[in-house]
């Protein structure tokens, strides 16, 4: 950008020069999620790597100015690989007193606060529980403070467009965005383009938003530069060549399902019932009818999974998706899918529990439920995505396993991944091997009766027959069935055999999945830090730092949680100690100890927030001590 040359690069207020954490915080109505999203896009296009963490209240629209109505969006970006949304912000934008109060704790010592001074009115201060104005009473001395009358400056900037006061104030997020974009030298073009599209029908709003954006930007350029406001220069992150976009986990998962169905050459049937944070997948897929996607908003989660089972039975790729309480409701029907050996993908966007718990907070406390949570011996493969973009590949893998092995598959993601965004190299058609589904559509050649529970000797999958196929009429159901004919059979030997087969089929999947890799470090050493799911970023960074301090620590991140990759046991035995950081009370730990009889030690965090790198670092230090 032209302006960049004019500015004297000053050291950023953060300790690190190649990555910065910015947190936008304001009232639910202040548009912080939108501001964050636009800044994310501009940052991605500027060539930084990044990770985001939207952190919004459970209420739809909480009363203005309250503490529980604060909505925040954090972004971590820089010239290096970014794997977490950042431990502690370098910069905090606080649009009102409540936003300041709720978010101050996390701010780095010496970090920069940009506050809308116009909103620090007596009324708002009181709502936030401040006795005195923190912008004035010296209580923020540990940080750098820029108190600007943002609301006022916005009103001035948009005056020409004749908006109501309320409408005019709504553009203050654009003013702020303009300022922050100037700070980090982000291109304004993508935001301009977005504003033009969004307000195409309301020219006065379009102009006002553009004006606010530009005014904020201009203010940065022209304001007194000796204050704490500095422009940062961050190099481009190194990235594999290719075409990039940003995706949230929910986006990538939806796209992965569409791609998975295409690779399987099947229409996709998605049965779901709204629930936070799973709904966004349903929302995304509902718009993709031209890709052969049928979405069905069912009356409840039971109907949703049952309809998906029905669709799979009829030859579609049935998928269902939910969270917490909704997943609990699906467990009976999961058993039916196991018994009838039909393909099915069950997506669990984990959130804080127990019960209704913390609907908008993240957690990984449904792993043991996924592996063990059904009546009977009822094995189901379990996969987990580790990051927003990873959701794409994991969704495809779930489709592959479900159709190839005729089995339900549970895919675990979580509230953090679902909402967080990161740059994603758009895959092309050669990145994934097709796995066309094979339907049995002919009776046996020799006139022998057709056996719906005859099995493929390699995968142990039973044949998939679409009702409607002449000559293959048969019946299935949830009662134990003869190991060949599929007719009801309660005999002792048959049940023993079928139980064994159901286990062997799922255990055997281990032979058809990639060997466990080491995410960072040697395949041996003093300590393996073993994780799964969305803790990938903090664990990787923490291990990186520990290694930088010379420790023989490696990071292993498991995608296939049931069955485990065949080499996992041997790999783990190559380490003296095993540490398992999880956002639960120690669930992967249970699986590892049971399976490999190794002294895997849990490191638990159950606060509804992702791990901080420093927390994992400290746990590593303790573990190797």
């Amino acid at each position, binding site marked *: 950008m032209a302006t960049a040359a004019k500015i004297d690069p000053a050291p950023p207020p953060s300790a690190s020069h190649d990555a910065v954490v910015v947190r936008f915080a304001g009232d639910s109505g202040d548009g912080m999620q939108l501001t964050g999203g636009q800044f994310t896009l501009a940052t991605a296009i500027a*060539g930084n790597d990044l990770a985001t963490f939207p952190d919004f209240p459970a209420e739809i629209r909480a009363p203005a100015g309250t503490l529980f109505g604060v909505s925040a969006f954090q972004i971590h970006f820089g010239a290096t690989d970014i794997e977490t949304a950042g431990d502690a912000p370098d910069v905090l934008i606080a649009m009102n007193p409540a936003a300041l109060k709720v978010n101050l704790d996390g701010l780095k010592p010496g970090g920069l606060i940009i506050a809308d001074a116009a909103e620090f009115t007596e009324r708002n201060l009181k709502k936030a529980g401040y006795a005195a104005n923190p912008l004035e009473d010296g209580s923020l001395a540990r940080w750098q403070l820029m108190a600007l009358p943002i609301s006022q400056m916005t009103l001035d900037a948009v005056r020409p467009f004749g908006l109501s006061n309320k409408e005019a104030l709504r553009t203050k997020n654009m003013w702020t965005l303009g300022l922050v974009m100037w700070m980090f030298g982000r291109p304004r073009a993508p935001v301009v383009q977005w504003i033009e599209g969004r307000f195409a029908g309301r020219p006065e709003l379009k102009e006002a938003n553009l004006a606010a954006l530009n005014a904020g930007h201009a203010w940065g350029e022209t304001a007194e530069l000796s204050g704490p406001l500095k422009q940062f220069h961050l190099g481009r992150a190194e990235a594999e060549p290719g075409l990039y*976009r940003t995706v949230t986990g929910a986006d990538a998962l939806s796209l992965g399902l569409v791609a998975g169905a295409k690779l399987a050459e099947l229409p996709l049937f998605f049965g779901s019932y709204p629930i936070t944070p799973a709904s966004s997948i349903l929302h995304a897929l509902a718009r993709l009818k031209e890709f052969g996607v049928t979405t069905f908003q069912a009356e409840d989660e039971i109907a949703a999974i049952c309809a998906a089972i029905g669709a799979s039975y009829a*030859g579609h790729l*049935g998928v269902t998706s939910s969270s917490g309480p909704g997943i609990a409701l699906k467990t009976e029907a999961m058993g039916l899918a196991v018994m009838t050996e039909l393909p099915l993908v069950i997506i669990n966007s984990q959130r804080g529990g127990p019960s209704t718990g913390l609907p908008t907070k993240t957690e990984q406390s449904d792993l043991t439920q996924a592996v063990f949570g059904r009546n009977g011996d009822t094995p189901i493969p379990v996969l987990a995505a580790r990051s927003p973009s990873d959701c794409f590949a994991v969704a495809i893998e779930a489709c592959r396993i479900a159709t190839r092995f005729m089995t339900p598959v549970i895919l675990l993601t979580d509230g953090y991944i679902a909402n967080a965004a990161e740059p994603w190299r758009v895959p092309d058609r050669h990145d994934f091997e097709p796995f066309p589904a094979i339907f049995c559509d002919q009776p046996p050649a020799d006139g022998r009766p057709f056996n719906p529970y005859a099995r493929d000797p390699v995968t142990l999958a039973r044949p998939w027959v679409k*009702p409607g196929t002449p000559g293959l009429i048969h019946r*299935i159901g949830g009662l134990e069935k003869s190991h060949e004919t599929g007719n009801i059979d309660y005999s002792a030997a048959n049940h023993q055999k079928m139980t064994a087969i159901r286990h062997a089929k799922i255990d055997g999947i281990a032979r058809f999945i990639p060997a466990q890799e080491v995410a960072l470090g040697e395949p041996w050493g003093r300590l393996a830090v073993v994780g799964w799911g969305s803790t990938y970023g903090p664990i990787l960074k923490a291990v990186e730092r520990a290694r930088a301090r010379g420790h023989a620590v490696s990071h292993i991140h498991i995608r296939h949680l049931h069955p485990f990759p065949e080499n996992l046991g041997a790999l783990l035995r190559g380490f003296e100690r095993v540490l398992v950081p999880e956002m639960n009370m120690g669930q992967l730990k249970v699986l590892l100890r049971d399976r490999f009889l190794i002294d895997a030690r849990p490191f638990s965090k159950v606060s509804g927030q992702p791990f901080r790198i420093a927390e994992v670092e400290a746990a590593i230090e303790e573990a190797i001590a």
Partner: protein
Amino acid sequence: MNEMTPPAAASPRSTRPDDWASDQEVRWCPGCGDYAILKAVQRTMPELGADPAKTVFISGIGCSSRFPYYMETYGFHTIHGRAPAIATGVKLANPELDVWIVTGDGDGLSIGGNHMLHLLRRNLDCQLLLFNNEIYGLTKGQASPTSRLGTRTPTTPFGSIDRPVKPCEFALGAGARFVARTFDTAQKQLPEVLKRAYAHKGTSFVEIYQNCVVYNDGVFEAFTDRKAAPTSQLWLEHGQPMLFAGGTRGLTLDRERLMLEVIEVTPETLPRVIVHDETNRSVAHMLINMNFPAFPVALGVIYCDPRPSFETVVAEQVAKATAGKVADLAALLRRGQTWEVSPPA
């Protein structure tokens, strides 16, 4: 894995009742009303010109829900109460299939009431046969939601006190567009009702009174009995006056109290007898609510007033929403703003 022969001819052929009987041994109690229903269904299928390979019977759990095993069609014996939900997935995935749901008073109205409600309001094209024996057969005779007040069962040793659901009334309340009622041994009329249900596009709700010889024997006898039939059964026919007892009695509307009334039919009173209009929802409610034996039991097609069926509307919306759109996955993946990272020079 089974080896394959060259494709069989897939064209529908005419069938005989026997073609609809599977090789599975029928496992109901001797004398169970389910046998009669099975027979009637197997006898009716050929007359519908249906194709066994394109027919799917879907059921929940219960004695009644064993039905699919005995039909030589595709069959899915699912879990308790959930057959309507599974059927919805099946039919949305392949609207070409003839979907029949078989359920019981427990399966359909106790645990499964909610799915029944939503099936009916959505109006998925299928036939739903509710075998109402006013008891839980399979689990050995507990009271069901249709059991009459005072029924003594292992769970209600002092008599049942939950006021029973009226299945047809519930169905109407849920928005059903086709409601019929018949009983197991009505071997003449049952097939006719099944034909009407099959012909109706949308969810055809058919309540079939079914005798459980073991746990609730004879509860319907008072009106299903051959001798009682003329005075106790009112078989409805669209466009025909509501007559019974060999035409000697009929139903009329007490226009003051806005209620139905039984009258002796004479040439003078005949014009007062209501003519059955299947599309009149209010009269359907009244017919269903008639109390036996003060009134006869209304049987046959009580209500039929079609609306577009769910899977049709879904298909129409898909057609409209996708018109002119190309399913370009590569383009989809690139949607939104993108940027290029070029290989290092």
